[in-house]
């Protein structure tokens, strides 16, 4: 998952306490789902076990927050590798929609209406994201844009599929 790599990446800026990591994670990557403290510290101790971070200095007092974590060369190499590697281009929603459309055609159900419903749902979500863009911080705008471009790609697929339903029906029915 991306939480360990994200925390490692944040540590590459400068050695930090778990508290600072959680705060920055929540600000930039949390999207309304704050990272539980427990997960921050269990992740950090696993990263320490794997030699990707070490505990720098320990401030006086009690509790896990006294520790300051420092990224190691192993950790930095992993972040570097992760950042430079492209993300698997996964057209997940299209395959789900594709399955639905093909099944609808096979079962002689109104595939066109399903596509219309899907289009309306997509546009509704796009309006919500656009509203976020109109009022949000730049970070929110960029995230909303990412969502919008993906939804737009789905919509284009919905349009072309809608235009080809007759041919597709021929192709999938005996």
């Amino acid at each position, binding site marked *: 998952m991306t939480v360990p790599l994200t925390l490692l990446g944040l540590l590459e800026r400068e050695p930090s306490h778990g508290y600072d990591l959680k705060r920055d994670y929540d600000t930039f990557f949390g999207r309304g789902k704050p990272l539980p403290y427990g997960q921050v510290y269990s992740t950090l101790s696993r990263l320490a076990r794997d030699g990707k971070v070490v505990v720098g200095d320990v401030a006086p007092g009690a509790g896990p927050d006294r520790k300051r974590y420092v990224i190691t060369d192993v950790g930095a190499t992993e972040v570097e590798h992760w950042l430079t590697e492209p993300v698997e281009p996964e057209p997940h929603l299209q395959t789900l929609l594709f399955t639905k459309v093909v099944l609808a055609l096979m079962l002689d159900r109104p595939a066109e209406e399903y596509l219309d419903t899907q289009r309306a749902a997509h546009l509704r979500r796009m309006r919500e994201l656009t509203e976020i863009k*109109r009022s949000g911080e730049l970070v929110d705008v960029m995230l909303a844009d990412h969502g919008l471009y993906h939804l*737009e790609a789905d919509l284009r697929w919905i349009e072309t599929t809608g235009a080809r339903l007759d041919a597709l029906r021929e192709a999938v029915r005996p």
Partner: protein
Amino acid sequence: MSPMIEARDVTYAFGETPALRGANLAVAAGEVVAVMGPSGSGKSTLLHCLAGILRPDSGEVRFDGTRIDTLGEADRSALRRDSFGFVFQFGQLVPELTAAENVALPLLLRGVRRTPALRAARGWFERLGLAGMEHRRSGELSGGQAQRVALARGLVAEPRVLFADEPTGALDSLTGEEVMTLLVDAAREKGTTVVLVTHEARIAAYADREVMVRDGRVNAPAGVAS
């Protein structure tokens, strides 16, 4: 409350080519509606019928409850001048006029004197990020700048209804979204009703709702009565 602008069973044919085959659309006051649909489906024809540019072959067009499809050319032209604003895909600025004069045009046509008209026009430039460009001619503006000038021209006379046909069609996506933000902000501020033709979903997402035109008919989205 009657809709601000409405088409009832509107048909229109270009000679033998039917463009609208019974189109229905009702837009409430202050609403921003995106008209979407494939190329050639009849979006622009619908917009032209709603705006009193074309007269439908049959059906009715109502503006604020009153039929306008039965009006003669002179009355419809006066209605367009006094109550409607327009923005098209290619700004269609008058090349001989400065940017400020272009923006002032709808006011001048309504009989506003030159000095107050130009003052009102210049008021738009700062807000549109065009400060200092008041004296440029359209040939000296980028596409995005010219389109913002065209938007100001469409809104300067505070029309009841703004008709926009692919207003961002000639712009790159970021510039297009800037123009849309300005358009929607201005419309919301003044309560302007907007009919926005676009085939781009990201542009339509700035509207309050969308309708789809297919084969000269209007479909409201699934689950929503038109």
